[in-house]
């Protein structure tokens, strides 16, 4: 059986013409290939500018890759084919406050992807919205609220509900917990884990908090300057880092110090 997600030689190069005959190229992501099975989580860590967000954007379809292809269940995803892609891969962003439209209600925010991508009738759409809200632990009354009336934790839940509403197989989350309080953050972590267990979702996590990464992910990519420098099973890498970057990251979060006592 084909893997849920297969990525082959995916890369991204930005080109800028500085003189009519001269181009300046910036390699944001060097060619990377990987497979992701359902029920599993891939975490991507790295410093600023290491290309981890670029990889997330390429997967989510927000950017077009320079080379390479993405296959979903064996079928190639074309870069222009947003309809097919967004029903399978959805994205969540770092700051829920700015990723939700402030001028329309939660109900409308959640209804829009359904209107654009499904043939459901108005009643079916409402039912789907209620189900999805219940899934992320919110009351159905929230469809009348506007994003500014909610707390940041609730907003991130709405962002998650918007991602879930098309019943995707993969969710790409770009630093979803970065600006959250500890107790809201653990609620969200629990919610992510529970949804994975219930619905068999796969996650691609971009994060810089290794504590959370260790807790939720199966595979780990460590990136530097657009290259994946270390990859493999999360627990093995974190227990025995090989690359300097990984060690540095671990050191900066005091996870090496604890071993020495």
């Amino acid at each position, binding site marked *: 059986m084909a893997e849920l997600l297969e990525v082959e030689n995916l890369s991204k190069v930005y080109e800028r013409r500085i003189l009519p005959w001269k181009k300046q190229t910036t390699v944001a992501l060097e060619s990377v290939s990987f497979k992701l099975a359902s029920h599993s989580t891939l975490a991507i860590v790295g*410093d*600023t500018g290491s290309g981890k967000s670029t990889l997330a954007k390429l997967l989510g379809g927000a950017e077009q890759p320079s080379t390479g292809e993405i296959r979903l269940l064996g079928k190639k995803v074309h870069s222009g084919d947003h309809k097919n892609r967004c029903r399978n891969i959805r994205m969540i962003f770092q700051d829920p406050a700015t990723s939700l439209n402030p001028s329309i209600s939660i109900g409308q925010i959640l209804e829009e992807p359904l209107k654009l991508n499904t043939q459901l009738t108005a009643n079916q759409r409402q039912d789907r919205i209620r189900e999805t809200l219940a899934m992320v632990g919110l009351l159905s009354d929230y469809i009348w609220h506007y994003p500014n009336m909610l*707390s*940041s*934790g*609730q907003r991130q839940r709405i962002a998650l509900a918007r991602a879930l509403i098309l019943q995707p197989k993969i969710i790409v989350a770009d630093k979803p917990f*970065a*600006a959250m*309080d*500890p*107790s*809201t*953050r*653990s*609620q969200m*972590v*629990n919610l992510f*884990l*529970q949804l994975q267990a219930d619905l068999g979702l796969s996650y691609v996590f971009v994060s*810089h*908090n*290794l*504590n*959370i990464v*260790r*807790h*939720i992910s199966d595979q780990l990519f460590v990136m530097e300057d657009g290259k994946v420098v270390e990859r493999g099973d*999360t*627990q093995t890498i974190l227990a025995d880092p090989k690359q300097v970057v990984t060690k*540095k*990251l671990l050191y*900066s*979060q*005091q*996870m090496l110090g*604890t071993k020495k006592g």
Partner: protein
Amino acid sequence: MLLDVRNLTVTLKTESLQVDAIDRMSLSLRAGSIHGLVGETGSGKSLFARALTGTLSDKWHVRADRMFWQGEDLLRLSDERRNQIISRDIAMIFQEPSQCLDPTRTVGEQVSEAIPNKDLSGGFFSRGSRRKERVIELLKRVGVKRYEQCFSSYPHELSEGLCQKVMIAIAVARRPKLLIADEPTDAMESATKIQILRLLQKLNQSKDMTVLLITHDLEAVSQYADEMTILYSGQSVESGSVKELLKNPFHPYTDILFKSIPKLGKLEAKTRLNTLPGSVPPLQHLPTGCRLGPRCPNAQKECVVTPKSVKTKGHIFSCHYPINQSK
């Protein structure tokens, strides 16, 4: 004791409502320590800093049994005298440093502005060059490697971490006794974050400068702070030395906060994290008594009365049903 605040209440008064955003909070700062002030968004951490420095608008009313700064009660001084003391002894840095700096002027100009004239020896005409020397010295001290370049660049040309270092340079220019760091590392990459926290620690040790670290990042506090105070919805929950609190929390909220960090909780991967149900109550709908009440796992009938703070061996907590009590 550098700062001793007892039963501070900050009330927000508008035409339609009157709420105590901070409800009888106490905090004492030992000179030369790093004190962490931890709480969730809206728990009144930043409000406390603003009440202390007297930068709140007229809508807010500040009352306290006492607010002693080195033996002087700040609330009973005239505004003028109070501002004098605060500008001499207290400095503050904020989150999102690149937005706090003036975008239209170079870093060098902004840092030199903060240096008082009396720090500069020598004649009137050599002041300019001495001022520049002092700025370079400050930039060196906060660990800016390419200080000459940094001196003549504008804030948008610098990274977030560098901007925060510049902010710290401005803050320490007057050699304050207390530095209030209001979420200094919020939304920063971990490597930069560690640099900033290290720098604060270094300044604390070498200059004997007390640091009040306001943050929601428990990992950072447990690593760098000596003492901590935990706030919930404007009420102080527990305070004491970090080691003691980590080992032996008395308040259920503290316990759950620490357990919510996978590393400290020593949990298996992919298991559920310990957390409280619900979310922080908004200011308009605060519960009476202990504000944790509706979310607390141990809440009972008495919790509708605000618990008094109890002090045992420098460890202060306010709860009717504390946990981990050895009898």
